[in-house]
């Protein structure tokens, strides 16, 4: 039992962190996703980690770093695929919005209710208008006319696709939650009011402490879920994945809100990065099951539940 990053994982983390810091500074991140973003991450091996012999625990380490850097794009859907891919959850009744649709080669159309997934080339879809005011400026969305979808079944099982998507999304959220806690702590050190750093006041200090705890609990939950995906004998797969998605999604959202609060008026400006993290966290809450879905799923695995 060695539940900490190995030396190899520390090296992997440091490597991807320096890549993200070097290639994806915030001014580039604010430019949004394009083919060059995909090409550079693909070249670094981000999407082919599993094929290259890395574990799910390794992949979680890498996606956490992508989240720290808020690297834009349908990065979870691109994992394990060569073509640029986004995803569309056909079970989300009434929604006809798809993230990144105009920028990709393929769309994975999933229906979790029926445990089905199809890979559809984007040419086979009737792509509608791009929305003019997306919630997350770095997650552009297009409308889709979903008539006569033709595609090929996904490789592997739907359960694997869904679980792996939940895991990588959770890992990305952990990175965001951790970065938000750091940003809030840094700001609380430097911002002076009443002739002293605002971080010396317990009201602000306690917000920061809670942010750090949330990020850490979400991290260990996500890494534990990754270890269970790697070796299903080490835990309960559904329970650990649902727990990770609940905690990571909420950590990203709540830390986004707390960071906004610590930054005060500046936190409500476009200029400060906090809103970009918070908006992404809200977007991720709509993918691979939100907190309500996963809390229910987790409870269903417990006594008295109907799983």
């Amino acid at each position: 039992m060695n539940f900490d990053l190995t030396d190899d994982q520390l090296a992997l983390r440091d490597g991807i962190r320096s890549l993200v810091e070097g290639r994806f500074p915030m001014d580039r991140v604010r430019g949004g996703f394009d083919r060059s973003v995909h090409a550079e991450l693909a070249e670094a091996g981000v999407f082919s980690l599993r094929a290259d012999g890395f574990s799910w625990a390794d992949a979680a380490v890498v996606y956490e770093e992508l989240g720290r850097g808020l690297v834009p794009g349908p990065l979870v859907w691109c994992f394990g695929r060569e073509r640029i891919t986004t995803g569309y959850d056909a079970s989300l009744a009434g929604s006809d919005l798809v993230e990144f649709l105009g920028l990709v080669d393929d769309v994975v159309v999933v229906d979790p209710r029926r445990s089905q997934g199809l890979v559809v080339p984007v040419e086979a879809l009737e792509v509608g208008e791009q929305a003019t005011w997306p919630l997350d400026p770095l997650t552009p969305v297009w409308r889709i006319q979903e008539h006569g979808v033709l595609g090929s079944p996904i490789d592997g099982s739907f359960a694997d696709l869904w679980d792996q998507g939940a895991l990588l999304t959770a890992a990305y959220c952990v990175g965001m939650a951790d970065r938000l806690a750091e940003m809030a702590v840094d700001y609380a050190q430097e911002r002076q009011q009443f002739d002293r750093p605002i971080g010396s006041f317990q009201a602000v200090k306690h917000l920061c402490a809670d942010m750090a705890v949330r990020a850490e609990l979400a991290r260990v939950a996500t890494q534990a879920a990754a270890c269970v995906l790697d070796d299903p004998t080490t835990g309960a797969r559904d329970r650990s994945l649902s727990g990770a998605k609940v905690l990571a999604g909420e950590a990203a959202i709540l830390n986004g809100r707390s960071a906004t609060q610590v930054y005060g008026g500046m936190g409500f400006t476009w200029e400060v990065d906090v809103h970009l993290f918070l908006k992404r966290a809200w977007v991720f809450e709509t993918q691979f099951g939100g907190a309500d879905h996963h809390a229910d799923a987790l409870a269903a695995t417990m006594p008295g539940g109907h799983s």
Partner: protein
Amino acid sequence: MDLRFSDDDEAFRADLRAWLQTALADLAPQPDRDDWHARRVWDTDWQRRLFDAGYAGLNWPKEYGGQAAPPSQQLVFLEETTRARAPYVGVNFVGLLHAGPTIVAEGTAAQKEAHLPKILRGEEVWCQGFSEPGAGSDLASLRTRAVRDGDHYVVTGQKIWCSYGQIGDFGELLVRTDPDAPKHKGITWLMLPMDLPGIEVRPLKTVLGSSEFAELFLDEVRVPVECRVGEENDGWRVTNVTLAFERGTAFVSDLVDATRLVEDLAPYVTDPGHRRELGHIAADLDAIWALTKRNVTQSARGVAGRGPFMIKLAYSEVCQKMGELALKVLERDILTVDGEGPFVEERLRSLAFTIAAGTSQIQRNILGERVLGLPREPR
């Protein structure tokens, strides 16, 4: 990262599981919670059986009766004893998880020899004398005086929240030995033999109607100098060894209890909204358990992580949520404390969790200042 246990650990697990099955089969029923003598007998008997089977003091040095086992085996021990619903430390709490570890870290060879084996065999029960009526969160402002008189300290003062004060053989006692020094510099850590003249113990009735707490009144109690652990006036540092330990792993036992409780509560939870809350609570508890594994791994490698500063805050807060959920679920069955399951009693007990051993507010100060590096509030 790898959650798989080694072959050695799995062999340890298999042996333990077999032993527990036999040992628990002839365990006497748990005594009445107010019968302190019977509780002492029951808890110390179990401790003796653990000792005889080689499961006492897993992380204590071998020369004093411990096992010097790897931390992973402590985790296996907690997992298996939880699963089997074996008794936990009970009245041995202070000795096993508080005073004992302090003596392991700071005691002289003679002190270790005199106390550690007895604690592990269940022959010596300890209580705690830290807090005072005027020194709670600001523990270092404590005023119980100890004046040196030859080979003795003469101790006068009052302690409160003395866990297991009614049945303790020894108390871990913090006293002020230098009233002129800055408050952190004039404190000394003493082992208090509870049978000395001048000690009065009064049970302290809590919201549960009774409790393991007592008030301690000390009137010119003559404590031999050899009962001092660490140097005179160095007691704050010695205490912090204990408090750091308390924040780190001592609360694993409470986490174990909380995990049992949430599984026991689950069958009663039927409303979909309440089931959802249950899912959130279980997610938190699972994560805190994962953080414990992280802490154990890091401490075995000598890495000082953030986790130990977070465990107590996180578990005590989730226990409050669980307690409230239990009350909602049980509806009017909560009108008697000893009605449906242990849930109402546990809800009352858990009110203390965010207060004892450093309130959640103090925990957040410590996290903010010592871990995140935020500036101290002017004081």
